[in-house]
């Protein structure tokens, strides 16, 4: 299990190792023939690599095109519920946040799905808060089987489940599970997640192991960028990925880059949550560095950039390493058709329609891909 490896690392020491990487280390990582190591990844995400960002971007673009061609995959999130039994100090769905709660009924779910289908989507990501009672495995089974005839590829981003629960969902049409560790800083993790099942750091940490054993096709990893030092957290995420790829070799992997935004979270973080650590906001430049570092480290990895990011950033990142984009996203249950005005989980930054985003992709000589899976592959 990943904990066997994870426990041999120390956060502060790792952070120091990244900070002590030199330009020579970065140059070596860039020039290396063949596959790069975790140590190279460390150099690529280090402050020393900032001076070689253009070089990294050029290489990242080449490697991405070699593997993925000039294509960008598109998907839409469908929020099923904002019920949540956790307290997370950075999230709009947090249990202690007094917002109207909603879980879609069958009829509402189908109306939302229809609206998404009309935009052209064939790949869908189902999102819920973390509530084992209201949106437990039975609800998910039901939701997936309702959507199965309409979409070629179904992903979920919900509370971590047990191995046999994941295994139960696969025959219904589950392909991909996204589960972000948020942070690998074990001690501070408890401060961000003081209540609810999510406060159990190691249950979350071992979720990808359970997914791998259950035989889920694709696993999406990530950290909430800005919660802790993004370099250290990203190193641990890469370490996790490296372990998983070798262990669960039949699984595909993707990385997402949820980044804390000052405008959407400031009030909460500085508010009355008793939150002592200031978020460490990550700049656009640093996010580009991270995306390129992942690509150079792992040529086959899918890299996903959501509508949290700005139009300008997304327009440019498709040439630099990203392979997957969402577009026209609504982050509230019912947001597409049922109840467009309800409260969102996070503020969407790029509000363009999927059609507009697809046109932008095509303008850059890339093909927007709506379908890259088939129901034939269970």
């Amino acid at each position, binding site marked *: 299990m990943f904990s066997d490896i994870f426990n041999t690392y120390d956060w502060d020491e790792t952070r120091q190792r990244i900070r002590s990487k030199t330009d020579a280390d970065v140059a070596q990582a860039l020039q290396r023939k063949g596959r790069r190591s975790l140590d190279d990844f460390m150099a690529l995400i280090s402050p020393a690599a900032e001076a070689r960002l253009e070089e990294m971007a050029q290489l990242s673009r080449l490697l991405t095109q070699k*593997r993925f*061609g000039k294509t960008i995959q598109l998907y839409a999130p469908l929020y099923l519920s904002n019920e949540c039994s956790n307290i997370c100090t950075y999230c709009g769905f947090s249990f202690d946040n007094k917002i109207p709660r909603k879980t879609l009924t069958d009829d509402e779910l189908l109306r939302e799905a229809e609206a998404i289908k009309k935009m052209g989507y064939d790949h869908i990501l189902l999102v819920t808060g973390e509530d084992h009672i209201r949106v437990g495995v039975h609800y998910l089974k039901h939701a997936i089987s309702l959507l199965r005839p309409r979409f070629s590829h179904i992903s979920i981003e919900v509370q971590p489940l047990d191995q046999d629960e994941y295994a139960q969902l696969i025959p219904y049409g589950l392909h991909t599970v996204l589960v972000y560790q948020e942070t690998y800083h074990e001690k501070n993790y408890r401060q961000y997640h003081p209540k609810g099942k999510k406060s159990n750091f190691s249950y979350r940490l071992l979720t990808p192991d359970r997914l791998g054993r259950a035989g889920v096709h694709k696993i999406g990893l990530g950290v909430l960028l800005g919660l802790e030092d993004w370099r250290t957290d990203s190193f641990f995420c890469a370490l996790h990925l490296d372990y998983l790829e070798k262990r669960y070799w*039949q699984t*595909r992997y993707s990385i997402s880059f949820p980044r804390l935004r000052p405008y959407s979270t400031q009030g909460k973080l500085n508010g009355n949550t008793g939150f002592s650590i200031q978020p460490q906001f990550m700049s656009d430049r640093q996010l580009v560095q991270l995306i390129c570092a992942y690509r150079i480290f792992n040529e086959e990895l899918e890299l996903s950039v959501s509508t949290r990011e700005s139009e300008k950033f997304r327009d440019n990142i498709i040439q630099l390493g990203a392979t997957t984009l969402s577009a026209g996203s609504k982050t509230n249950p019912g947001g597409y058709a049922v109840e467009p005005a309800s409260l969102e989980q996070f503020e969407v930054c790029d509000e363009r329609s999927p059609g507009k985003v697809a046109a932008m992709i095509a303008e850059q000589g*890339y093909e927007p891909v709506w*379908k*890259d899976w088939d129901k*034939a*592959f269970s």
Partner: protein
Amino acid sequence: MNTLKIADKEFSSRLFLGTGKFGSAKQMEEAVLASGSELVTVALRRVDLETDTDNLLSHLRHPHIHLLPNTSGARNAKEAVFAAQLAREAMETNWLKLEIHPDPKYLLPDPIETLKAAEELVKLGFVVMPYCHADAVLCKKLEEAGCAVVMPLGSPIGSNNGLQMRAMLEIIIGQSNVPVIVDAGIGAPSHAAEAMEMGAAAVLVNTAIAVAQNPVQMAHAFRLAVQAGRMAFEAKLGTKKKNAEASSPLTAFLE
């Protein structure tokens, strides 16, 4: 140049194309036309079988172009056989490029599941073209299973590394009774020419063309390289024969 016969079809072009990774369907179409290819492979997973207006397929409607559906995405024989049947119905062809890769990172073919699926698909009446390792024994077994061709890889798919499996490919070509098509790893026209000179019946190219700065021109370059390589192969055969005739028999003194 000899034509290439596979099942009931004859091909004057020995360059087969993949249709993924292009910047647009239109660019893909132009590249396919420039390549002169008559057989292009299309991933079932990329095609919307529920509409008649699929973007990819609508750009491949030319009388000289035959579609070769592939099962990319299948992880075992069962999935591949199911996908093959869907593809046969939707694309109205019993030709099939059999791809089974349980490993999504390197996309390496599973020899055991591929052989299993090939046996079954042949029985179901498919013209089976299996993507496989450059493994001479496996290729013989696929031939015995009734596959129309074998498609060993030149090097890992998408790597553009050329014929790193050269020694094995030579053995496979040397002993095969079905056409050997080098699939995967061909990154430059010179690699394609090399495979053809070696005696490959055809090559299948995708990444090297799709990702080139000018895919249409690169497609044309591959067309020429494949022709040149084939001509050289055929010419070499002729030359050898001539030499043999010209030399006096070493055993004449025995008479």
